[in-house]
């Protein structure tokens, strides 16, 4: 999974070694998925893992658009949601008609639901790329989200459509009642979908999608219609988003209009972009982080979404390659052996940067509680701050201002150290 979408895996001289490493990474991934619930077996962590697995499939499907084809969609949750509804209706139909379809096949129908809608609308949507596509995807997203409240018989209105996953025919004697069984079902589909989506990047269509992303005009002069390429890529993205939605429907035993709304579309964009769109594994990191934060922060703070926004803005402004991009930046330095020259400047920068971060958190929490009329103390690293005391405001202001001024100096030092290390790495023949 460490292979960059932009990298080559042509007939390189050390192909055998590369292959070993490549399959090794996937194997490790599968082993982790199998072992994880044995290590953390509480119900809460199983639910969290399930949610993360669904989020990964969803984010990877989104990256077919954003990272692979250069299409920025603000309405990807439409396919996720329709996949979820499709799965719910299918499960209910299986039960009421007595069809011999066991639960593990249901996500496939979710995928087909997502795909069907993609086939229907995306020919029109993908005529144009860039900003126009982004706006149209937003419009289609709103259209479907609003329509779902009107077509009550299909979408169940505000309440949504409920289902019972345990009522389906069994497979291997599993009822899929316990969360652990659902977890393994999701893990299975996660592996299958991830492999399929990775394989897609290695096909002629996948490669041409990258070309369309880089330069849609030039693609026309090597024989391809960029519209067709975008259309096909969109259909695949819709299919895998539908699978993710189907998995969610199984996990929650419900599908409602929130599945296909703007917030869901925004979250998958956040996860994918924060993780990094240029590498296949980027969205995986992003989905893990965003889901983890979502689950972790909601219990700690009432304004968790604001932190998401701030992290996202920070990534867009300072590291548009996302976390994966940040990590992969270090690869040439690591190979050239110059990484150690950068580390001291990192260590120096940590202190003021953390101070700045604490200041921002303190300020946000203080304002949130002050205007919310709450008097409860803010607990930051075991220190209690009273939101009504001026000392708290002063502490926050000092941390933010002081942290920022000093942190900027240390960031500049990182930049200089980085440039030196990168120059040496380049001289030694390791390209970024």
């Amino acid at each position: 999974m460490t292979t960059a979408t932009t990298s080559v895996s042509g007939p390189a001289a050390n192909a055998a070694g590369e292959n070993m490493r490549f399959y090794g990474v996937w194997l490790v991934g599968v082993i982790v998925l199998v072992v994880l619930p044995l290590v953390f077996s509480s119900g809460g962590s199983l639910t969290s893992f399930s949610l993360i697995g669904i989020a990964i499939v969803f984010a990877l499907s989104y990256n077919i658009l954003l990272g692979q084809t250069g299409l920025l969609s603000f309405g990807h949750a439409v396919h996720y949601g329709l996949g979820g509804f499709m799965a719910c209706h299918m499960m209910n139909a299986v039960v009421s008609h007595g069809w011999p379809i066991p639960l593990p096949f249901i996500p496939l129908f979710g995928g087909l639901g997502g795909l069907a809608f993609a086939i229907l609308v995306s020919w029109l949507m993908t005529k144009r790329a860039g900003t126009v596509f982004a706006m149209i995807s937003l419009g289609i997203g709103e259209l479907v989200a609003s329509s779902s409240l009107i077509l009550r018989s299909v979408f169940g209105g505000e309440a949504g459509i409920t289902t019972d996953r345990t009522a389906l025919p069994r497979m291997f004697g599993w009822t899929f009642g316990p969360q652990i069984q659902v977890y393994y079902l999701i893990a299975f589909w996660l592996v299958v979908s991830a492999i399929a989506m990775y394989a897609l990047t290695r096909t002629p269509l996948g490669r041409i999608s990258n070309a369309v992303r880089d330069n849609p005009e030039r693609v026309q002069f090597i024989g391809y219609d960029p519209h067709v390429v975008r259309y096909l890529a969109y259909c695949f993205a819709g299919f895998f988003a539908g699978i993710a939605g189907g998995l969610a429907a199984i996990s929650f035993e419900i599908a409602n209009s929130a599945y296909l709304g703007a917030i869901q579309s925004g979250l998958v964009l956040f996860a994918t972009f924060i993780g990094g769109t240029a590498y296949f594994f980027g969205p995986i990191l992003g989905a893990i982080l965003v889901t983890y934060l979502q689950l972790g922060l909601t219990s700690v703070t009432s304004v968790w979404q604001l932190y998401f926004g701030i992290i996202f803005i920070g990534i867009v402004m300072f590291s548009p390659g996302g976390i994966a991009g940040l990590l992969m930046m270090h690869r040439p330095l690591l190979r050239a052996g110059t990484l150690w020259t950068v580390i001291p400047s990192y260590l120096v920068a940590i202190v003021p940067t953390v101070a700045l971060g604490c200041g921002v958190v303190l300020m946000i929490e203080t304002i949130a509680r002050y205007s919310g009329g709450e008097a409860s103390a803010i607990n930051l690293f075991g220190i209690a701050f009273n939101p009504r005391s001026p000392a708290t405001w002063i502490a926050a202001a000092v941390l933010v201002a002081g942290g920022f001024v000093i942190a900027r100096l240390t960031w500049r030092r990182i930049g200089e150290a980085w440039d030196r290390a990168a120059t040496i790495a380049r001289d030694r023949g390791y390209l970024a």
Partner: protein
Amino acid sequence: MTAAIEVRAVEKRFGNVSIIRDLNLSIAQGERHAIIGPNGAGKSTTFNLISGHIKPTSGEVRLNGDVISGLRPFEINRRGLSRSFQVTNVFARMTVWENVRCAVLWATGHRYAFWKNVDHLPEVREQTARILEDIHLTHRRDVPAGLLTYAEQRELEIGVTIAGGATVVMLDEPTAGMSHAETERAVSLIRRLTEGRTLVIVEHDMSVVFGLADRISVLVYGHIIASGTPEEIRRDPKVKEAYLGEEAH
């Protein structure tokens, strides 16, 4: 024998302004044809009209006898016409290898396939390797195109243009911005790679034009004022007046 490219009475208007008027041009099979003219004469527009990048207001363009004006660029490309761009225009985030390979995929019949592993297509691999060899970029194959030197990017642009095996190759100022040594290298590259194909080239460097072309057309204010062999063009008084008189070195 039908002409490779036949332009008949083509006009292109933007609003009320005629950029190209009554353009007639015939380029024989296997000919190396240069289009020259002062800045703003409409050379790039002519290229864009032939390759389908823009549509003519009136008139028609034929490729090997078939009308292609009005077709989309990729349809024209599939009929065997390929072009390069004046502004370097490769796929910046993809490697040199991937750039050329993408240009090979349609011609080898793999189209939009999503069921084949692109690394396991022997004919694609061989053709890509051959073209990289031809443009002398084999040692740079794993470098993202955006990180190549300017001259290397121009060579890659030529490689991408010829990779699909087009019979008619159009190069838009392939040596612009190159040093003298780089230009010589590029000219011999072009001569070798377009062997047996029809070449249409727009170029400012007269040494390149007169060294490479079998025939030359002179475009002034959207109209071809002369067309002929390099010798004829050199002697043509109209050309001297309109073009060479002021710019010949």
